[in-house]
C-alpha cells in the first residue's frame, strides 16, 4: 500500500529560483535564507519519496485567463518548464507519476472533489523553486511529482475548509493505492507578502508564526480563516497559504514537527518552511 510519510511546506519565491540559477546563493543577501534549507536537503536525502504531490499555484505561466481551474491535477508522464518571461528556468524536466496520479484524480472526483484533469501541463516557479530548495541542483530530479494546481490568484479561491478536506481525501486515496510507495505532500507559497499597490512589501511575521503553530497543532481552526483575513493580515498574495492546508490535511490529526525555518526577506516575501511527519507513522 502507498502511504504518506511526510509533509513539506515552503515558500516558492521566484527570485529564489533566479538566485540558484545564477549562482548567487553565497551572496550576503541570500546566504542566510539558503542556510535555512541545508538541514532540509540533508533530510530529503535520507527520506527521499517515490512520489511528491506538490500543491502549488500557477502564476499566469501556463493557465491564462481562458481557463481558471480551482483544483487541477497533472497526470502526464512529464511536465516541461514554463517560460515566465525571463526564459525557462534551467532545471530538469519534472517526471510525473501517471499511475498514482490517475488513481488519485479519479478517487478525488468520485469523492466529490471536482478535479480538472491535465494531460498536458508546463510548471512554473511555484513548483520548481520548492524542488530546488529541497533537492539542490541535480541533473535529474530524484522523485516523481504529481502537480496539484490550486487557484489562489482569482477571488474566490477555494475555502480553507475545502483545502483541508482535500488533503484528507488525498490521504485516503493514497492509502487505497496498491503499490508500495513512499509519498510526500508539499504545500507551497506564502508566507506574508504583497507584490502590488501602495501597500506592497507588507510582511507580518507574527501572523506567519501563529499560522505555523496552528497548522501544526490545530489545523481545524485555520480552515475557517476567511480569505479576507489572509489578504488584510498577510497581504494580497499571502492567501497562497491556503495551499499549506491541503498538505496538512493529508498528514492526519497529529504530526511531529521535524523542522521549522523563517526568514525575511526573499525579494518581497516572508519565507516559511516546515517539515512535518504524521504521528501514526512512527
Amino acid at each position, binding site marked *: 500500500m502507498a502511504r504518506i510519510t511526510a509533509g513539506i511546506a515552503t515558500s516558492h519565491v521566484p527570485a529564489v529560483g533566479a538566485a540558484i540559477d545564477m549562482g548567487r546563493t553565497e551572496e550576503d543577501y541570500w546566504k542566510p535564507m539558503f542556510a535555512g534549507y541545508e538541514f532540509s536537503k540533508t533530510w530529503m536525502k535520507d527520506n527521499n519519496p517515490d512520489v511528491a504531490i506538490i500543491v502549488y499555484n500557477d502564476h499566469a505561466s501556463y493557465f491564462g485567463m481562458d481557463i481558471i481551474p480551482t483544483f487541477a491535477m497533472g497526470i502526464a508522464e512529464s511536465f516541461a518548464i514554463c517560460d515566465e518571461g*525571463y526564459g525557462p528556468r534551467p532545471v530538469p524536466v519534472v517526471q510525473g507519476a501517471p499511475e498514482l496520479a490517475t488513481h488519485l484524480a479519479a478517487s478525488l472526483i468520485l469523492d466529490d472533489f471536482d478535479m480538472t484533469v491535465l494531460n498536458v501541463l508546463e510548471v512554473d516557479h511555484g513548483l520548481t523553486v520548492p524542488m530546488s530548495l529541497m533537492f539542490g541542483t541535480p541533473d535529474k530530479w530524484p522523485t516523481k511529482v504529481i502537480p496539484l494546481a490550486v487557484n489562489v490568484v482569482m477571488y474566490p479561491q477555494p475555502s480553507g475548509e475545502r483545502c483541508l478536506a482535500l488533503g484528507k481525501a488525498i490521504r485516503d486515496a493514497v492509502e487505497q493505492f496498491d503499490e508500495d510507495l513512499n509519498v510526500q505532500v508539499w504545500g507551497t507559497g506564502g508566507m506574508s507578502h504583497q507584490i*502590488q499597490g501602495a*501597500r506592497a512589501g*507588507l510582511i507580518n511575521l507574527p501572523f506567519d508564526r501563529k499560522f505555523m503553530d496552528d497548522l501544526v497543532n490545530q489545523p481545524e481552526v485555520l480552515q475557517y480563516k476567511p480569505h479576507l483575513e489572509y489578504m488584510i493580515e498577510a497581504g494580497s498574495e499571502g492567501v497562497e497559504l491556503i495551499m499549506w492546508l491541503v498538505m496538512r490535511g493529508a498528514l492526519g490529526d497529529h504530526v511531529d514537527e521535524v523542522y521549522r525555518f523563517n526568514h525575511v526577506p526573499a525579494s518581497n516575501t516572508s519565507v516559511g518552511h516546515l517539515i512535518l511527519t504524521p504521528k501514526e507513522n512512527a
Partner: protein
Amino acid sequence: MKPNFEQFKDIPGTTIFTIEKTRQGYHLNEFCMSLRTAENRVRFLADQRTYLDEWAMTEEQKQAVLDRDFQKMLDNGGNVYFLAKLFASDGLSYVQAVSTMTDMNVEEYTAMMVAGGRNIEGWRSKKERGEA
C-alpha cells in the same frame, strides 16, 4: 453562498483580483501572457504600439502599458502575475517593478524589505487611515 466583492475595498493600497476583474482585464492580461515567448518579446519591444494594437484592449490599458504604469494596469483589470510577463520582458525583477507602485524608489523599498518589510500597523483599513 452570495459572493461579497465589496469586502476587499477597505484594504488600503491593494487591488484584489476578483472574478469580475478577469472580465475587465481579459485582453490586457492575455496580451501579457503572449510575452511568454522570446519571439513575441522581441516583436513587442521593437514596436510596442503596433503590437498592442493587435489586442482588443482599451486605449487606457494600452497607454498604461506604454507608460509602464503598473498601478493603472491594476486599476484596469491587470493582475500582477500577468503584468510580470511585461516587466520580465523589460528585464526587471519583481522588486524593481513592484516598488514603482509604492511611494518609495527601489533603493528605499529594498532597504525596507531588508529591515523586515512593511509593518502592517496602520495598513489594515482605509477607514483607519482616513482614506475612506
